[in-house]
């Protein structure tokens, strides 16, 4: 399986995702944002970090870069696209995913392990998880407060496009388990074709027992199916 990781100035989880992809035996390439063509890939990853310093709006400037038109073309042609954290923000800025990520409710950067629940396990990204499985996974962001209009929210629910929701250890989705104020505890969503996933938590940080746990591995292994 061939993967491409797009690197913007200010991306800082690009190395981490590359380590994860290599560990899972993807054939991975790093693509500099000034490139104007994308090598043929089965998976495009937009990594976390602070592309362009998160200046103006997080993800806004990366959303205008040279390479992003290629990403949009590939995505529309059905290529799998994964946006993690800043990558999710970039995907909403390009319009590939709807809605937006506002400042965390407490206006602070939050880094901690939280629990999320797998809502839809019937996608290319999640088939190796069980439905409603609770994962412990690291978040690290300033703007993870997902917001969208009510029509789109209905659409997300009716078409099973919510990927993950923040929850407590036993899987209860409630206000106390919502770290950033996200609408309906949404931690990640799919587009209507389910070939694009944007998520705030960092699965690439959860592939190694020395530093955390291995709850992120199945996301990558699902993609290999």
């Amino acid at each position, binding site marked *: 399986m061939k993967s491409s990781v797009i690197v913007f*100035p*200010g991306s800082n989880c690009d190395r981490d995702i590359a380590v994860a992809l290599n560990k899972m035996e993807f054939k991975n390439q790093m693509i500099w944002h000034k490139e104007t063509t994308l090598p043929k890939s089965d998976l495009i990853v937009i990594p*976390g970090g*602070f592309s362009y*310093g*998160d200046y103006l709006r997080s993800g806004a400037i990366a959303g205008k870069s040279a390479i992003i038109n290629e990403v949009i073309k590939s995505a529309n042609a059905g290529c799998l696209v994964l946006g993690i954290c800043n990558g999710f923000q970039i995907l909403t800025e390009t319009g590939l995913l709807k809605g937006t990520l506002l400042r965390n409710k407490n206006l602070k950067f939050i880094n901690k392990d939280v629990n999320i629940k797998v809502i839809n396990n019937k996608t290319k990204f999640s088939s190796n998880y069980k439905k409603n499985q609770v994962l412990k996974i690291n978040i690290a962001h300033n703007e993870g407060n997902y917001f969208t209009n009510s029509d789109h929210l209905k659409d997300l629910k009716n078409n099973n496009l919510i990927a993950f929701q923040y929850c407590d250890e036993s899987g209860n989705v409630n206000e106390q388990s919502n770290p950033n104020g996200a609408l309906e505890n949404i931690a990640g969503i799919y587009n209507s074709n389910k070939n694009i996933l944007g998520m705030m938590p960092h699965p690439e940080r959860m592939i190694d027992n020395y*530093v955390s746990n291995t709850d992120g591995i199945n996301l990558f292994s699902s993609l290999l199916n």
Partner: protein
Amino acid sequence: MKITNKIIERHGLKMSEYERIQKLLKRDPNLLELGIFSAMWNEHCSYKSSRLHLKKLPTKGKQVIQGPGENAGVIDIGEDDAIVFKIESHNHPSYIEPYQGAATGVGGILRDVFTMGARPIALLNSIHFGSPSHPKTKSLLNGVVSGIGGYGNCIGIPTVAGETKFNKTYNENILVNAMAVGHVKKDKIFYSKAKGINKSVVYVGSKTGRDGIHGASMASAEFNEDTEEKKPTVQVGDPFTEKLLMEACLELMRDDSIIAIQDMGAAGLTSSSVEMASKGSLGIELELERVPCREENMTPYEMMLSESQERMLIILEDGKENYARNIFKKWDLDFVIIGKTTESKNLTLKYEGKLVGEIPIDALSSNAPIYDRKWVKKKINNDKIDIKSLKKIKIEDALIKILSSPNNSSKRWVTEQYDQMVMCDTVQRSGSDAAVIRIHKKNKAIAVTVDSSANYCKSHPITGGKQIVCENWRNLISVGAKPLAITNCLNFGNPEKKEIMGEFTECLQGIKEACEFLDYPVVSGNVSFYNGTNQKNIFPTPVVGGVGLINKCNQTIGHHFKNENSFIILLGKTFGHIEQSCFLRENYYILEGNPPTVNLKNEKNNGEMVLTLINKNLVESAHDVSEGGLIVALSEMSIGSKYGLKIEKQKNLRNLTQYLFGEDQGRYLLEIKEENLNDTVKLLKNSNIYYENIGNTQKDYFEIEGEMKLSINDLFKINNQWYKSY
């Protein structure tokens, strides 16, 4: 323009220093030259009050690759790996503008580390605030923490450890010390020593603005009617540009284009060019109109003294200019050849073809003034506090008071604002005795921690100095690391006062003795004087940052209890020293008395024994006993784990309160599984190490026989409420 006494004074120079300048130049300086002298001769750059004393510190050892004198220290961690690290203060800027002050502090120390060719892998900080009830404390705390996080998170280097303290001595002068740690291949270390004549001197990074220009406010006011606009401006950090600068520098460092490289920190272009030239015994000539400027009409004076952030100066090998320029272009950064090295041993400054300043490099560096300032020994008060005469207080109440106090509350409110996981090598995050960072793609790791004890240092500077080194060493041992070397940041008051200079001299004496005894050399550091206002100086606050080595990642341990029914061993002797304890401070507001003595021999033996036990895989969890004494250390092992404990009442104990709350040094708590108890005890006995078997772990409850029983959930809540309600 005539140099008046007022101008000299506004540049922070004494009349005697001005006369020295005249003598060295054999003429009067012009304003630009005066500005340059003032920047190079101020305390921050010249270390004129501290240099004589710093020389006494031990700086050598077989683990040391580079001691003090470079941008950062370098130590050997085996194979082809080396660690580069240093700590630096940003106290005054952080008090004026907490967010930007703290952020640029982090940015500055990161540059010191990647200048040497190292990729930064961890950030630490030591932050001290005034009393929580002081009206400024809350916003300073908020600003500093988000500034530290803002910079580190954005650039993508995990902030993994630190300390956050409150004490009214910092009401008007907070401390913000930042430490950076980087990893480098031993044969790829870069230094700041210039070599060769006629080599290109290259400016890279951000443009130069009017940021933080010293003494310039008045001087430039005379050039211009509109003074308001010319006020020196606060430095604003730009972590995004720093990230690009870091990646560009590291990319250029892959081959051998660079002869020397130096970041522009304090005193910007001035100190970076002088330092490179001085180390190489060369001269440097700059053509200042080439300096990339952010604002219109900037003068040579402003260019030379600007402290704009995210800039570097590089001396390039012949013929490498285009190669290097392309790398910086790729990263969208300015790259301008602004001068060359010369034979003259002068700093030669030209502007639009005209000579605007010329100063012998020696005059700025080796001929800078050095002061042997007067100092007096601290008068030690040996009064003992009779604890029996104090109003009685229940053990449980005293413990709750301590665990819920600002200084001893859980620091999660702070550390959750820092990305601790980015780079995916953080084996232990904040909260334990030391953070553990794996060396990328290897099985070994380093442990890092910072420590200080202002109260101990105030009451007994020599002991305080020793104690912080020992505590730092214990913190590394507790996670299973072999301590290798330290960096230090010496935060003191006004050195022109003999009492303050005495505190400095004696603290340093203590640091020296401990470092020598423990073979724990000092490889880098920073001095920050003049912390305080008018007559009120801060408590002496040396901060020590230590680095240790863990040979196998899986051998590191944490401080949380791991199992039920384990044995709890207290290693080291308990005397019940209660003066200067957290117990007296939090419960009785008693601040007098001496700190516990430090017995270096015991420290060394006990520490080495703990390390042996951990390396033999006999220990489940470990924690050193420090502020708050035995009972606080035990609570910290319970809070956040699933297990509490039951401590048996010791038979022939004279005073339980002193036993539980005394802060005797050199002690560790070890959790030992039953099947490992015999082996452990045998080793301890054979080496004549004093230990006590004080009880066992149990589920859910924290219990001291006959005295108290609390659920560990309650303990957790008690320990986690303060920041939330502040």
